[in-house]
């Protein structure tokens, strides 16, 4: 992995993405839920706030993930998370 060239095509080939050029390196100990929570926090900060679903919809998802990472997740959380994620993605202009 370490000898991978840093460019768009190669990143895509191995199932990664090239964003602004920054790189997040994780290993098998990294908690995926925690990563999701972290990125949702990031998205929330990055939202411009024009479209309602993105402005408001990131918050409950972040709350759910925070709860899960704190060990207080509920069975229902997963379904809700998925439904909400789909709605926000479908309803917002920049995510198409």
């Amino acid at each position, binding site marked *: 992995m370490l000898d991978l060239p840093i460019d768009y095509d190669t990143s895509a080939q191995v199932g990664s993405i090239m964003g602004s050029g920054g790189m997040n390196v994780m290993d098998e100990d990294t908690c995926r839920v925690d990563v999701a929570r972290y990125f949702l926090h990031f998205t929330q900060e990055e939202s411009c*706030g*024009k479209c*309602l679903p993105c402005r*408001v919809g990131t918050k*409950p998802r972040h709350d759910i993930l925070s709860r899960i990472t704190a060990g207080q997740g509920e069975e229902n959380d997963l379904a809700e998370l998925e*439904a*909400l994620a789909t*709605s926000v993605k479908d*309803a917002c202009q920049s995510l198409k």
Partner: protein
Amino acid sequence: MKISINGRQIEVTGKKTVLEVAREHGIYIPTLCDHPSLAPFAGCRLCLVEIKGRKGFPPSCSTYVEDGLEVLTETPQLQTLRRHILELILSEHPNACLICAEKKNCDDYKSTIRKVGEVTGCVLCPNNTRCRLQEVVDALKIDRVSFPSSYRDFDIRRDDPFFDRNYNLCILCGRCVRICTEVRGAAAISFVFRGSRAVVGTAFNRPLLESGCQFCGACVDACPTAALTERATKGESLPDDKRDTVCPLCSSGCELAVDLRKGRIVSSVPKDGDTVNSGQACVKGRFILRDVVYSPKRILSPMVRRDGELQAVSWDEGLDFVAQKLKAYQGRDVAFVASPQLALEDSYIFQKFAQQILRTDISVGPLRSSPLAAYLEELQKHGLEPELNFEMSALAAAKVILLADTDVVSSQPLLWLEILKATRKGVKLITVNPKETASERYASFNFEVKPGAESYLFASLSRRLLENGRPETFSSIEGFEDLKKSLEHLNASGLDPLAGSQEEDLRSVARLLSEGHTAFFFFGRAMIDEPQAGASLRALWNLALLSGARLIPLAGENNQRGILELWRRTPGRGLSVSEILGQAEEDKLKALYLAGPFPVLSKTAAEFSVIQDSYLNENVKFADAVFPAVTFAETEGSFVNGEGRIQKFKQLIEPLGEARPDWWIVGRLAQRMGATGFSYKSASEIADELAKSIPAFEEAAPRQQKKGKPAFVLEEKKTTKRFLPAEPGWRVPEKSSKQPLPLGADNGLDYYRGLNLKDEVKGLRKLRERQRLKREK
């Protein structure tokens, strides 16, 4: 174009959005951020639809129709999506009442208690039943919110006049922000912060008063929730009636819709749809109409002075008393002052009364400081009868607009909106003012000139225009050679009152004006208040002729044009207000009948004086009799607005106290003085007579109003083009020597009959103070 919505075939013409077409055909698509006066925003995402062959869910408000579009508005995915979005909105907005299972019953059993600090539910909300959120929740049948509520806990802003801002109820649809910028050009508010912290606010969170807000109320009317609420209506119950009227507070003649409850005015908002004012108003029409009608200064009973004291009497007693006394005075002994703020019908009866009974002519309030009156007078002096009618909508075709000596933003806000629209389409705006004005920021060229030096500027422009103009368009006009000669004497480098740095602007403007574009020149009060008014006017007239522009004087009061037209058609002229004062000073005036604005007197002006007004004012202490007249709200009639449009207005409420319409009072008085022909039963009867006796007012007749075409004062079509004699020398005054002006002659026209609106309404006073400070800075 053919499209299909939910399988229905629809024929579409013109550039329209999917949402517009759906609405036209009765297909409901929920939306919160869309507004008919605003560009598509697509922020609330409720109006999403599915379009065959397109990815995702495009918002119907910002998707324009194309041929062959197949639109679906009610698929299961869309329904789920919309429910989710609306639930998200509700998670931020107090929702207990919105989704309550008992809400139907609640309306019947709970009294309204809206005057609360915090709105926690619809029953406590001043916007209950008018809320767009309620409408959408009902349409989507939302009965639960799956997301936890998050109350944002903003402080409620109550530090500005007229309305409160409670952003806890805000759904960030942006309608207020957009209307303030797109329609009103004020841009006082904006989105502040971003993402989940986004909120609507002013720069540096200052009060609106300090942020360039004109308090037109457009944002309040655009708000779909109660985030913005008119303070005066907060404690009011819901209105039970709605009637239309015409605002009497300036010459725009805005059409307003008035909410009433139990025969009382609750509030007034601009009427929707295709109106003179295109659904907009200004601070006066929107927020203070009710205060005008219900002012504690209203005179509610006829009064007669007995033993030095004014005592309330019956109408019979009062009328008999005045009729008896007035019989002794006729001709030049007596002056009758009429108001330019009353209906045409009242003005007509005033004139008839003055001519037939008092054998004199009416004097009209502060007409002498009206640009319209000054313009007419100056041109008539030179044998010209200029065209006065124009339609505000004509500005849409303009390429050049010049504003001289006026801050239309505060004095003619509705005209300003049309000018603003024009500037958005690329019109070159030229402003000429002695002081900084709010319109300047939209101007392509701004000339700051000393008061009284306008004629010099216009002559400078004329001279440059002659140098690069197209002579065929103006050289054949009478008086051209004289003008040319006089301009040759204009020494551009000598006594130039214009800053030298403006030379380039002068050249550019002259070039622009010489290109033969459709141009409109407006001028305001400040120009004709100067002793050099005549010279400025003639110079501007000549410049307008050279540039092929239409010159339009700004009218002041709502019926000023109407009363001027009456005046124009009578041989005699009443004394001006200052002439009356002069006569009073020399004890030549015997009787004074004041039914219009007049300066505050310091002593008795005549042996016998009568005041007919809606409000007690300082001159009442010198009056022998006082008659209570109704306001516009308690009567019907017609106004002629600044365009020359005849506007009918209807009665809103019953007269307060013993107040009576002005035509009724003077008519009854005439009858008691032995005259016939004054026994009118209604204002429309008078309108009929007026239309018959003065052809120009033909369209004022009630039956003429039904044609569906706007009614106008009829003007003789004649082209009067002649250059007016220019000043021999171009003097630039050192200092202006202004006379104190009568009530209402100040810039903003903030008066109604005997009421000074700034004294009466604290909010207006604060706003005007702020605007004045800004100008004098």
